[in-house]
């Protein structure tokens, strides 16, 4: 017998699976590091908070991209190298990294941007900072 009213159908699973509670996104501008006198490998951290309506903490899956570039896994850390020109030394720093957390009523974000040009001088150093826009797409799904 054919089921004529599909609205009465519900999903029955022998095993529970992930239930998505919310899908959302945010864009965070991070102006980049300004620590030229020291800490050439230090990043600026910019935080943000966005309310959600679930009413309880959730697990999160997320991806992010910088300045409209390729999408990255939420665990990806983008690195680059720069030169301390006075010494010819090559060092590394982060172009971008994100953290994402969830409370009962808000989603919390952290972005790290350590991107700058080669450093000149012999201390204090100087460099040009590169600002970046972090676009984060995320899914909240039930913990229990």
């Amino acid at each position, binding site marked *: 017998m054919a089921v004529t009213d599909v609205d009465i*159908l*519900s999903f029955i699973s*022998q095993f529970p699976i992930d239930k998505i509670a919310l899908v959302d996104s945010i864009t965070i501008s991070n102006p980049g590091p300004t620590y030229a006198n020291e*800490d050439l490998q*230090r*990043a600026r951290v910019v935080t943000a908070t966005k309310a959600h309506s679930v009413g309880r903490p959730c*697990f999160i899956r997320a991806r992010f991209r910088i300045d409209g570039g390729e999408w990255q896994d939420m665990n990806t850390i983008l690195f680059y190298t720069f030169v301390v020109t006075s010494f010819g030394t090559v060092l590394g720093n982060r172009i971008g990294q994100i*953290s994402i957390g969830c409370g*009962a009523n808000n989603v919390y974000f952290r972005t790290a941007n350590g991107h700058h040009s080669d450093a000149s001088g012999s201390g204090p150093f100087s460099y040009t900072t590169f600002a970046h826009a972090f676009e984060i797409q995320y899914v909240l799904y039930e*913990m229990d």
Partner: protein
Amino acid sequence: MAVDLTKLQFYSGNNYLKRSSFFGQMNAVSTGYDPNQTSITHNLGYIPQFVVAADYQNNGIWWANEFCNDVRGPGGVTNGVIMISPSIDSTRFFVIASASYDGSVFAATRPVKYGIYLDS
């Protein structure tokens, strides 16, 4: 004729992650400079997929990934954060807690939400 919904089975051409009974909360315990490991036993007999969220600051915010700071690693971690690294094998799920060098949180316990799937 009424449809007995309990007789319905979900069929998908694509597989989907199925949750095991091992969804819960455990504590990651940092005891000092050396990373400290705690675990739970799942005994599934294979290496399953898992999900984790850690309350790094014990304030009700569950972080899904590394808590990024201005300087990476325990030495640069501020705000009283305990770093937590999850891992799994065929019998147990582990969390390794690394202390901040901030003496105030040198030894601390942080709650971790975990979920172990039936799929490998």
